[in-house]
Each structure stands twice: as C-alpha cells, then as structure tokens.
C-alpha cells in the first residue's frame, strides 16, 4: 500500500495541475447557452412553420437543451393565441411579420428571432369563376379581414397591377368564415388561406386568381417572443433557437419521419402534411441568414417590414415609420451559426 502513496500523490498532483490549467483557460465558447429551467409556454399549431415545435417535443430535444417547454395547442383559436402571446400568456408563437408589427403598434413589444416559414401559396385571392385577374377586381365586392395580412396581400396584389385599395369595394369579413361569407354576402372575391382556399374552389366553383407564391417573401412568419422575455432569459431563447435549427435540419434530412410525426399527431396522411409544406416554405438557417440581413427587398425581413409599414401608413393603420431593427433580432440566428 505504501508503494501506492507516491503514485497517488503524483496522480493527484497531475490531475490538480490539469484542473488548474483548465480553470485558467478563458472560456471562449461555452458548451451551450445557460438555460433557466423555468417553464416556457410555446404555441403549437398545424402549420408548416410550426411543425418543428412538435417534432422537437416528440424527439425530446427541448429537454435535452435544458428547456422546460410546455406546448399550448392554438389550433382551436389561433387569433386568440396571438392575443395571449401579446399579453405574455404564451411565451412564443409563430406570427406573420405583418401581425407582429400590427401588435407592436398597440404596444405588444414583440421581437422576431427566427423566420420560421414563408408563405408560398398558402394564402390566396379566390374569386367567382367569372373573374380571371386582379385587374378585373376593380369596383368589385371583395371580402377581407380589414387591417389584416389578407388585406395587405390584396394591397400588394393591386399595387402590382397599378391599382390600390380604393379601386375596389372592400367588405370586412372574418377570414375563418370565408366560404359562408362568400355565399351569403354574394362577394365577388375573398382573401383567405389553405385549406379553406381549396375547399371553396371545390365546393363553390371558385377560382384562385393570385396566391402568395406570386409575391415571394412578402408573407414571412417567424417565432416571436416578448422583448422582456428575451432580456430576462436570453439563454433560454438561444437554446430554443438552437433546437429550431436542429429540428429544421432533421426535417430536411429525414422528411418522411418528420412529416410522419406531424401526420400522426393531426391524423393526416404524411403526403398531406408534406403537401402543406409546399405552399408554406419551411425556412432553414441559410434562409434565415438572408432574411435577417438588412436589405430593401422582400428577401429581407427588414425589406418586408418596410413594405408592411408602407401599407400601414397608406391604410391609415399608423403614421409612424418603424425601425425594423427594433423588432427583428438576428443575434440568436448569428449565434447558431457560431455554435
């Protein structure tokens, strides 16, 4: 045993030396963001941009990242979930950039940290069969939820053909009730989203004259948090964004399995789930890098925000020129790149 003492002392000295040395080394990059372990309420919704949330949950990646995530089902009432997010009752939700800006105008103080998805045909202007183009909407009764993304879409569509909102007769409707409104109010066109679009076309012999794929980048959606949450729990947000990146990579590399998970949850076929993702493009890290760059066009969230701001000013929603750097935070996406 005596013989072992010098060996043990030597080993202890070596280990102590190594530990000391490690302790002296500056921590350039930590193992990962420091999470708080506090509960985090995240909205889930049957929407391509939100697929990742439920896949990550099923895979246990939130827990692995040290996040205490509770998923809130917003399928019954997405609009109410937006209100809850603005009120701080839900910590994070997938918002249209348009909606986020609108909520911020009322003091919601939301900040987008991920560009989850980009509408690529999910929303559409559906008209009676006799109307074949946007130009033909002039003077027609068009049902749209006023001040909404749908009206913004109409604004952009009209701008494209040199028209404006004053050139048509706008009828305010609730978008979820679009098929009923379309019939009952004898509307010439409505602006709504999938799967309502497909339903109306099938059941009412309607015609899709324009969808968001014709205006790429104009309808970005992203993961938003309250600014206060970001300030108080930046580690949680970074971990959350890291999980998003991990999951979107998984979706790209294993689409069958990923869409299979969503299909099982929502009792759909994997084909349906995947088809839905065709009209709402799931954005990855590279897409986000571009989206968070400051540019004037729709390829940038800043450019898109400016267009939205232009519309809102024109529509009288606001008279303020907004600084998009205030509500688009690229830090977390940048840090994903670095990690």
């Amino acid at each position: 045993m005596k013989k072992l003492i010098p060996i043990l002392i030597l080993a202890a000295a070596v280990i102590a030396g190594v530990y000391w040395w490690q302790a002296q080394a500056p921590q350039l990059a930590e193992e990962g963001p420091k999470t708080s372990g506090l509960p985090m309420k995240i909205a889930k919704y049957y929407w391509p941009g939100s697929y990742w949330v439920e896949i990550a949950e099923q895979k246990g990646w939130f827990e692995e990242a040290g996040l205490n995530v509770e998923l809130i089902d917003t399928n019954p009432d997405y609009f109410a979930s937006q209100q809850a997010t603005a009120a701080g009752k839900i910590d994070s939700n997938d918002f249209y950039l348009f909606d986020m800006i609108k909520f911020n105008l009322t003091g919601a103080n939301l900040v987008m940290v991920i560009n989850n998805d980009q509408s690529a045909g999910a929303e559409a202007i559906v008209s009676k069969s006799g109307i074949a183009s946007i130009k033909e909407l002039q003077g027609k009764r068009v049902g749209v939820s006023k001040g909404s993304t749908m009206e913004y879409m109409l604004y952009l569509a009209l701008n494209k053909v040199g028209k404006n909102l004053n050139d048509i007769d706008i009828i305010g409707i609730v978008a979820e009730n679009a098929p009923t409104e379309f019939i009952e109010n004898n509307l010439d066109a409505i602006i709504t989203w999938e799967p309502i679009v497909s339903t109306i076309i099938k059941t009412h012999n309607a015609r899709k004259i324009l969808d968001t794929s014709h205006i790429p980048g104009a309808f970005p959606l992203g993961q938003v948090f309250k600014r206060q949450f970001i300030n108080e729990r930046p580690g949680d947000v970074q971990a959350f964004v890291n999980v998003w990146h991990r999951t979107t990579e998984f979706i790209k590399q294993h689409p069958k399995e990923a869409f299979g998970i969503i299909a099982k949850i929502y009792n759909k076929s994997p084909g349906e789930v995947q088809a839905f993702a065709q009209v709402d493009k799931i954005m990855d890290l590279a897409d986000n890098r571009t989206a968070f760059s400051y540019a004037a066009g729709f390829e940038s969230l800043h450019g898109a925000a400016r267009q939205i701001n232009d519309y809102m000013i024109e529509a009288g929603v606001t008279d303020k020129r907004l600084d998009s750097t205030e509500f688009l935070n690229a830090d977390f996406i940048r840090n994903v790149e670095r990690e």
Partner: protein
Amino acid sequence: MKLSLKISLLIGAIALVIIPAIGFLSFSIAGKVIEERIHNEQGDLARQTLHEIDLRFHKGWENIHLLGKTSLVQEYVEGARKEKLTGLLKEQLVLTGPWDLLMVADTEGKILASTADTPFGNDINSYFPNAEAFYKALTGTPFATDAAISKVSGRPTIALASPIFDAKKERILGVVMGQVSWPVVMEILDGLRPEYNVLLINQKGEVIATRTRDRTAIFHNSLQNDHLFRRTAARKRGTFFETHAHAEEGQHLSSLTIQEGYLKYKGHGWRLLMEVPEVVAFAPVREMARNIGLAVGALLLLLAASVFFVVSRMTRPITHLRQTMAEVGRGHLQLRAKIATQDEVGQLAGAFNQMVEDLARARDEILRAKDYAENIITSMVDTLVVLNPDATIRTVNQATLDLLCYTEEELIGQPIGRILAEEEEEEEEEEALFKGTRLQTLLEEGAVRDHEVTYRTKYGETIPMSFSGAVMRDTHDAAHGAIVGIVGIAKDMRAVRRFMAEERKQAIELEVAYNALDEKTQRLERFQKVTVEGVLETLPLKAEINALLVKLGQPKKYKAPDKIRERRDRIKD
C-alpha cells in the same frame, strides 16, 4: 520499491515538470510570433470589416450616380413630372440601397420628389443635416457626406448626391440624393465575434456606429481622449495596436484601423476601433500550449506506463532471483534461480546457482564436522563446559547437564560461578580458578590440567571434579589471537576418592594384621623353643596363622602335616 516503479515515478515526476515547462516554453517562445499573427489577424479583420462597409457605400454611391444618369430621371426632372419621379424613386428604394430616403432636388435646392412619408419641407436643408453634398453635386461631381443624424429617419446616415445632367450632358438639371440605411453598417459590425468591442468613429472621435445592441452610444460617446485615437489622429491610413489595462477585465488588445474607401467612394477617414481582452485574443495560443502540454503529459504518462510494463518484464528475473536469494538465505539451499535469459541477468542467476551449490556443499561439510563434534561432545562421559571470555557459560554437554541436574537453558549465558561451588565460596580471588591471578595464569599459559574444582548441582550437592581447560583463540586473527573462549573438561572424582579411601582403610587393616601376625610369630617361635614336642598341640594355632595369611593374600606359612614334620625336623636340627 521496485525498479520499474521507480523509473515510472521518475518519468511521472519529469512529466510534472515538463508539462508546465512545455506549456510555458511553447507559450513564451511562440508567443511573440503568434502575438504578431494575432495582431495581423485582428488588423486583417478590421480592414475587411471596413472594406465591407466601404463596399456598401460604394454600391450606394454607384446606385445614386446611375440614378442621376438615368434618362427617365432626366426626363421627369425636365418635365417636372413629380408623381412619376416619386414612383421611380420608390421603385429604386426597393431595388437598390437600402435607403432611408431617396429624393431629387432642382438646382435651387427645391424638392421635386421624395420617398419620405410626409414632406418635411420644400428645400434640401429640411432633409439633410447639411447641404454640402447637394452643393458639391452641383459642381458636377458625385459626393458623399460624413455620417450625421438624418432629419428624416432620426438615424445616422451618410448622404450621397449625384448631379442630373440634361441629355447633352451640358447642363445640370438637379441633384439626386440618397440617405443610406445605417443598419447595414451596424449589421456588418454585428457579424464580428461577440468577444470584440467594436466602435466606428469619425475623425472627430465621435462614435458613429456600433453593434445594434450598443446603438445608444452612437453620437453620444466620444473617444477624443482615447490614447490610441489621439496617437493616430494625424494618420491617413494603416492599422495601429495598443495594449491597455481595464480595471475589471484585465489587459486588452486594441486595434485602430483607418478607413481607406473603395474605388470612387473615398471614405471619410473613419476609424474602426476593435478591442478584445488579451485572454480571449491569446486563447488560441494558450489552448495550443495547453494541448501540447497535455499531449506531452499524456505521452509521458503512457511512456511511464510502458516503461513500467517493459521494465517489470525485464526485472522479473531479478525479482525471481531476489526471491530465490531470500529463500536461500532462509536455508533452502536446494532452490535454484531460473535462468530465463542469456543476458547479464541470466549470467548472474547462473553464478548465483553455482554459489548456492558451493554453499550447500560447504554447509554439508560443516554439518558433518559439526555432527562429528557434537557426537564427541555428546558421547563424552566427562563434563564439558565452554566459557565466553567474560566467564559466562556458552556451551555445556549433556554429561554436565546430567551431572548438575540443569537444563541447557538454565546454564547458557550464566556465569561459571553458577556451577562452581568454590567460585562463590572462595572469598579470596587467589583461590578461584576463573578469578584474579589464576584466571590470568590460565589465560597466559593457555591451559590448566587436573585442577581440582568443586561443582555444585542445582540442588546444592557439591561434586569434586578434576578440571582441565584450555583457552580458545581466534585462529583467523593470528596477530592478536583474541580470546574467544575457554573450553574445559571436568571429571567426576567422587568414585576415585571413594576407592582411595577404601584402599587407605584396607592398608591400615593390613598393617594391623601384620603387626598381630608378627607378634604371634615371635610368640610362636618362642613357644616352639619351649614346646618342641608340643608341636602337634600347636597345629590349630598354625592353621589359624595360615588362615590369616590366606586372608592377607600371602602363602600359607604352615603346610600339611608333612610340612609340620619338616618344621619339627628343622626345629630338631
């Protein structure tokens, strides 16, 4: 401790010294080179960052220049078609830039068209912090102002202006101007590693751009008193370094790089100040040193383990030899060391085996000699006592023990006086054999013979003994002849003495008988003379005399009647 363990520990101890030494050496020797490299890298990064900013402004500069040369713009300005001009500018706002503002003014400085949401005024001074760019552009040259806060966006910007010529390029119709969106600059700074503190400052030392998160410092903080800034104030280009201490964060490495512009965009002599804690800047060096140290340490420990393994195997024959030696030392002379190798260790084992064989042979001889001696001692009838030079008993034989009723343990180491009655009783040293002058004599003469001594048994009985002794000297020390002991043999004299006493008694009795015989003979002779004839009557007396003579072993004096007759005849004669 085993040799293999010693060597392994030695290597381990060397590792303990070498690991930090290598770390220190690699850090200090390579430090200068790497420090220079880090400086260069930081300088390159700063130049690259500034270049990116210059590229952005150059692109804006080109866009505004092209816009000024666009025939549509010329046409709309000449035709004062404000709406068309505004539409064109809004289109350009999305397609180029990014801009905070695009506008066209006539040569008087009156606004013809603007992308501003609400008109701020009719002249150029309402939109720009100063009209320098406008007036420069009126001279026919595109121009870019220094950074300033825009009156339209409230954000920092630079104003780019380019003249609008008529179709023949002879007359300036107006000026097209743009305010660059400042977030493009901050975005470039955001792209730098978060460890860097980074500030873009103008020639006055005012902070004009930061990372987005630090934007409150823009046009609020000034580095006029910064040592590095002041030191390089007169410089037009280059990158400069400085190391300085922060109260809380320790040493920092600062670099200041001067903007050089790109192509026709000449820049404004801005300075990009980058600051990074030295622990971060030199982290790669430290990490390298640590990794080298750890790698060397691991290698040394591996080496120690390997050496331990190899030396253990190499020294296994030695270990076996040592164990065999120990066993041989304990008397197992039949054991032999294994000869596993033919090297020196194998030869050593062979020599050892030979030595053990010789030793066994010698021991056998000694044992035989010892047995022989012991046999002699054991077989001796007389007592044997071997004394140490200090007169204590070293050895006794069985005859001694039997005679004196002691066990060997009771006598070994005891003084000789224990068994010599006279040694205790004799007060005078002169009388004792192993004391005083007699001992001296014994030692000097080397021997004593037939010295009468008295032994005393365990139970106090005294036994007269005849003692003969000799001094034993160290035969290997011939020069000094050191005394190693005294060996003595003593004979029990009790039987001899008894016999002598008996003899003395018989002699006395014989003498008395002679005397009586002689007297009777005389009386007889006298009587013969008186009673010649009465010989027959003396026969009984003669028979008595013969009996006495026979008893004394003498021949009968009186024979049978014939003898008596001869005697009678002789008497008659």
